[in-house]
């Protein structure tokens, strides 16, 4: 196989952190190389160096035998490298055609050559089976279609090497399968692909060769044919992880209920239409759905950040009138927010201060508005110990903690109040495998204790592993919850994309 890309001895340091440590990788023509690694393993840094966004401290990049000048994205584009980022870089208010041609035309030309651009785009669409309407505005496209536009953008610029950064993070299983078909047809036409992911089953499905990154180093490199799930997982994490498993339990009475709740789209959170939901003791109810289908509104509702426009919320049979974040906390609702760093904690305040942010007005933390420093210190030291929060101490600024430890802090704050129900909104997104197991274990513990938990996630594997029942949200409507034992990822995926209604 002809070698077309060669990364040689790439090192990159940020302060004391070694993001990439003498990484060498090659990519052959017509090959799919999977780059596997946890968050923070250095995958994105490496790709940013390849693409010229960062300059490597050491090492170099060769494309088709030529050295790439460092730090110049233009040069990478010129050499035929195309990148599809996890977060798309498309202009919402422009058409597909305009997005694809944006930046490819000289500023000095008098007129746009729309016609030949259109022909070129149509040919590419046809050749690679990437169907999109060139005149549709991007804002009206589904996530899967937007990804196709991103790939078309790279092809239009005559990319020979395509880099996809976590491409399936926002897709339903069906859309993912479609993407894998597309990748196959790209390979058949002579493209080469680097596929970045942390999802093992996808990588095994789509790649020819796998490189595993851990702490900035390549720790394993193998042909996919010889790879197996368990050893890849161990290489990625560096140790064996036991996924926590819940013990079977029979759910108790309904604790929390939404009856015919609607929220209009005017609030800017996405709409909810006639949502009915009952959360019982001793159960985890999983909420699946592609992001942007009303999860934000539902989470805001249960967090007390917004009120239903229609319908009622009840807790223990009592209607929750005029909910506020403070009243919901006091009613016994624990809330783990989606954005842990900018909503869950205040980075500039200390671990100790964040620990009491919801209970600051309660005894013994304060009396008559005056803090009891001794009581607060005692409590936060206990919680740091109990929840194994790795920090320099209670006085450390929270922004200096790792994502996993910030989440442990939030868990400590929420679970220590013994909530009757818990809203866990994407509780493990962006965490490493060890922290994920910890968070899941704590949620299962809370379930055993009797809490009802609403788990919102975009990761179907997580939902299937943890939930007792799963409901799907699509365009603001909630499906009937289904027993996890009786459903597969494919069933849920169909409802997530709106192709079938739940029975």
């Amino acid at each position, binding site marked *: 196989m002809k070698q077309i890309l060669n990364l040689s001895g790439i090192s990159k340091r940020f302060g004391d952190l070694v993001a990439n440590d003498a990484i060498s990788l090659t990519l052959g023509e017509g090959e799919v190389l999977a780059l596997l690694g946890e968050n923070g393993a250095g995958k994105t840094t490496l790709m940013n160096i390849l693409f010229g966004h960062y300059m490597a401290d050491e090492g170099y990049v060769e494309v088709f035998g030529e050295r790439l000048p460092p730090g110049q994205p233009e040069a990478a584009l010129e050499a035929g490298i195309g990148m599809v980022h996890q977060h798309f870089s498309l202009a919402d208010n422009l058409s597909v055609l305009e997005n694809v041609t944006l930046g490819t035309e000289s500023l000095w030309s008098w007129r746009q050559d729309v016609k030949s651009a259109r022909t070129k785009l149509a040919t590419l669409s046809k050749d690679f089976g990437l169907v999109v309407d060139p005149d549709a505005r991007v804002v009206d496209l589904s996530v899967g279609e937007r990804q196709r536009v991103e790939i078309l953008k790279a092809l239009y610029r005559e990319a020979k090497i395509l880099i996809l950064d976590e491409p399936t993070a926002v897709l339903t299983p069906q859309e993912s399968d479609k993407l894998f078909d597309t990748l196959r047809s790209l390979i058949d036409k002579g493209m080469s692909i680097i596929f970045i992911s942390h999802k093992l089953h996808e990588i095994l499905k789509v790649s020819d060769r796998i490189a595993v990154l851990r702490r900035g180093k390549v720790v394993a490199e193998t042909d996919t044919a010889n790879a197996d799930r368990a050893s890849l997982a161990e290489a990625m994490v560096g140790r064996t992880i036991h996924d926590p498993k819940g013990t079977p339990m029979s759910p108790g009475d309904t604790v929390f209920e939404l009856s015919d709740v609607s929220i209009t789209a005017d609030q800017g959170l996405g709409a909810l239409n006639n949502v009915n939901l009952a959360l019982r003791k001793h159960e985890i109810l999983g909420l699946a759905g592609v992001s942007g289908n009303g999860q934000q509104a539902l989470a805001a509702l249960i967090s007390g950040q917004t009120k239903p426009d229609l319908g009622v919320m009840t807790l223990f049979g009592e209607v929750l009138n005029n909910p506020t974040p403070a009243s919901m906390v006091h009613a016994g609702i624990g809330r783990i927010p989606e954005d842990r760093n900018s909503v869950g*904690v205040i980075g500039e305040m200390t671990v100790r201060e964040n620990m009491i942010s919801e209970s600051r007005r309660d005894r013994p933390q304060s009396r008559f508005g005056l803090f009891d420093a001794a009581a607060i210190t005692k409590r936060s030291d206990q919680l740091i110990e109990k929840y194994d929060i790795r920090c320099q101490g209670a006085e450390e600024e929270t922004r200096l903690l790792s994502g996993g430890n910030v989440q442990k802090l939030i868990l400590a704050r929420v679970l220590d109040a013994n909530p009757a129900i818990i809203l866990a909104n994407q509780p493990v997104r962006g965490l490493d495998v060890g922290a994920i197991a910890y968070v899941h274990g704590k949620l299962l513990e809370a379930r055993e204790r009797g809490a009802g938990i609403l788990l919102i996630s975009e990761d179907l594997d997580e939902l299937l592993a943890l939930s007792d029942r799963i409901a799907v949200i699509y365009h603001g409507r909630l499906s009937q919850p289904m027993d996890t034992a009786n459903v597969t990822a494919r069933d849920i995926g169909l409802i997530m994309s709106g192709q079938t209604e739940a029975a």
Partner: protein
Amino acid sequence: MRLEPRQTIPMWMVLSAPVMAIITALVVCAGLVMWAGEPVLQAYWLLFKGAVGTRFALTETLTRATPMILTGLAAAVAFRAKLWNIGGEGQFYVGALMATWLGSGMVVLPPWLMIPFLLITGALAGGFLLLVPAILKNKLKVDEVVTTLLLNFIVLLFVNFLLEGPLKDPMSMGWPQSASIIDEGVLPGIVSKSRLHLGFFIAMGAAVIVWAIMRFTVWGYEIRAVGFNAAAAAFSGIGVKRTVVLTALLSGGLAGIAGVGEVAGTKGYLTLDLSPGFGYAGIAVAMLAALHPLAVIASALFLAGIYVGADSMSRAINVPTYIADVIVATCVLSVLVSLMLTRFRVRLR
């Protein structure tokens, strides 16, 4: 060249930042002194002597620092909550106006009641003035920088109108000034043969109280939380709008007390030049103190010393007193830069 955030900020760096900033400012302004054709060291020595060199100089500096501590606290408290109160000058004047209106004969109480009465009513006046921009910000998202700044001019013109009309002292021989505060309301002097008055201790006490509020109370916690991250504060159950309103009352109240002190302590009656910009100087004081309430005392004393010293220096040699404004402005700029350098490390790549 890039900036990298520091993981931890050593204490010595935090403490040396304002010192380095002051030295930088003095070095930069040395150029201006040379331009005026006078010897730099002599000018700075005269400035220093004029600020603290004699008993008179020292008491003048303390007198000048008194309102600046209070307006500095006003700015520091508001800026902590990211409520950008540029209206200290207006709140200062409504405080002074309230003291004049109630204190020049309308209300007569024994001194131990009269003085607290004037302080409290003045604080209420200042607080309620800032309430207007705070409510506009809460309800309609109106930018408080604009509203507080413009209110300064409205208040100043209103005071002007009153001094030319209803409040004009008939015995003032045509000068636009009010009648004097009655004896019961005058803040007693604390050093004989000087203008230094009880207001100085009130200002120091206010700084300690504000520090204690910010550090030991739930309210102070909420003010800081709202300033750092309003979204996270709201999520944890803090009433952000309520906090903004309470912060406005505290901040405006402190500036109002500064006005009361100047009318009832330093001057005795209200004129249009009661404040040489104490409200604006408070912003510089707060910035130089990095918004720390106790550091506000040191910062106000330093800036007051610059102003008083520069007055005295300009009488001795040919450097205009405006050098003080330049020094203060350069100080604030260099403090902002040095505070940034404590948070970030500069890397040349």
